[in-house]
């Protein structure tokens, strides 16, 4: 466990500057949004950082994962008496943890703003929020707890982050182990991965939506068909993230060498 912790902390410290900048950016947006709660600008500004997090974290992973394997530091890393997949897992966990913290900040910001935005009951950016309009509009924590972020929406955000990082690790692993036609094969693996994801996603989603599963949700309201659909896609995305992550780590463990 100590080895895992040491590797994890090393990865966090390694990217501390980028994580800190992102944290400042996202927190800045959300604080500004909270100060403008009740206005449309506040609501929009509270949602905007979500897109930054979802877009930027895979890019960080894209840079971070091969960075050490391609530098001279790989000599030290690869000669450590541990399986190489553990190093990959720690890199994944470091970025996933940072991304999760940032997502939570966004969710709190959106949660707060939605509870202060008159007439707000949902917004259609895959994050479903329900609003009890009878709640008084005074500032305070009580308002925060009257609004409900649906579990489906939160699950979608985290599964998207999880999937994107796993996907990046898979294609970067191809990039690292292939010595010839590297660029071509990396692009090809990315296209193939995307094809597999969407091809099976439609089947999985329709199968799950037709079933009689009582969907898990923290929100007290009724579950719409859309919510069921989003949930099934989120679950599928999470599972595929696991598959891609596993494939990437397997390739790293089995074939990576200097």
């Amino acid at each position, binding site marked *: 466990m100590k080895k895992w912790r040491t590797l994890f902390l090393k990865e966090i410290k390694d990217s501390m500057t980028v994580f800190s900048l992102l944290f400042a950016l996202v927190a800045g947006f959300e604080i500004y949004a909270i100060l403008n709660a009740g206005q449309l600008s506040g609501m929009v500004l509270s949602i905007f950082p979500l897109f930054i997090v979802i877009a930027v974290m895979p890019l960080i992973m894209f840079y971070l994962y091969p960075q050490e394997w391609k530098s001279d530091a*790989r000599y030290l890393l690869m000669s450590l*008496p541990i*399986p190489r997949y553990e190093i990959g897992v720690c890199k994944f966990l470091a970025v996933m943890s940072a991304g999760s913290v940032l997502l939570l900040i966004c969710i709190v910001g959106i949660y707060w703003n939605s509870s202060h935005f008159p007439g707000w009951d949902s917004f259609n950016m895959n994050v479903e929020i329900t609003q009890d309009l009878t709640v008084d509009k005074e500032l305070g924590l009580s308002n925060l707890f009257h609004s409900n972020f649906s579990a489906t929406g939160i699950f979608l955000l985290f599964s998207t982050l999880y999937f994107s990082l796993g996907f990046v690790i898979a294609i970067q692993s191809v990039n690292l182990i292939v010595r010839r036609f590297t660029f071509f094969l990396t692009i090809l693996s990315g296209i193939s991965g995307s094809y597999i994801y969407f091809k099976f996603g439609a089947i999985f989603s329709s199968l799950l939506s037709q079933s009689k599963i009582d969907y898990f949700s923290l929100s007290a309201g009724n579950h719409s068909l859309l919510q069921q659909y989003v949930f099934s896609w989120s679950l599928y995305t999470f599972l595929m993230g696991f598959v891609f992550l596993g494939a990437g780590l397997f390739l790293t463990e089995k074939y990576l060498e200097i």
Partner: protein
Amino acid sequence: MAIEIENLWKEYFGSIALNGISLKIEPGKVLGVLGENGAGKSTLFRILAGVTRPTRGRVTINGIPIGKSTRSFVSYLPDVDPFDTWMSVREMFQFLAVFYPKWDMPKAEKLLDFMKVDANKKIKILSKGQKVRLKLVCAIAQRGDVILMDEPLGGIDPISRRKVMEVLFEEFRVGKQTILIATHLVEDVEAFLDEVVYLREGDIALSGSTAQLKEEHGKSLLDLYEEVLQ
């Protein structure tokens, strides 16, 4: 620990780095691996360190095939700076201590003092020579049963080289460590070598004990180096 190499091949896209070499190294010996650039020295060390896979052949240390388990008792000093430069020297020691159960922190600190490297300095601000010395300290403090040193003296000034080697071998060597040294600086290590292997284009051109080779050929290892490799 004994190292056994049987019919070891390494190919990179048709280019042969190691051409089916076989070698047996007895425990506690100091072996010099000498050869020109591209002779296969670094490839051999990388395979022994478990960071490169052989194309064919069998390599064992004390009967154990190279892999995760052998990496725990092999100290590997590559010919590049393998450090994360944002760490301080002390942070690097603490990092390595987690992974190597026999890591000797007092010895590392003592050796660092001798090498005149400040433990609180960030690695990125160390000079090239200091980084080389730090690599040596890390390799020794791991107390591996096998130590692989790939060009350990490159970047150290000529006056200090002999002194550094003396201290490493006479004061800090533990028990029967098997040590392999790949270098071009034959004169600086000659006195410490029990056995020598001359590699040429992935093949073993000549090998034997240092005393035997000197006696048979009537030449120093450096003169033999020039003769064999030409």
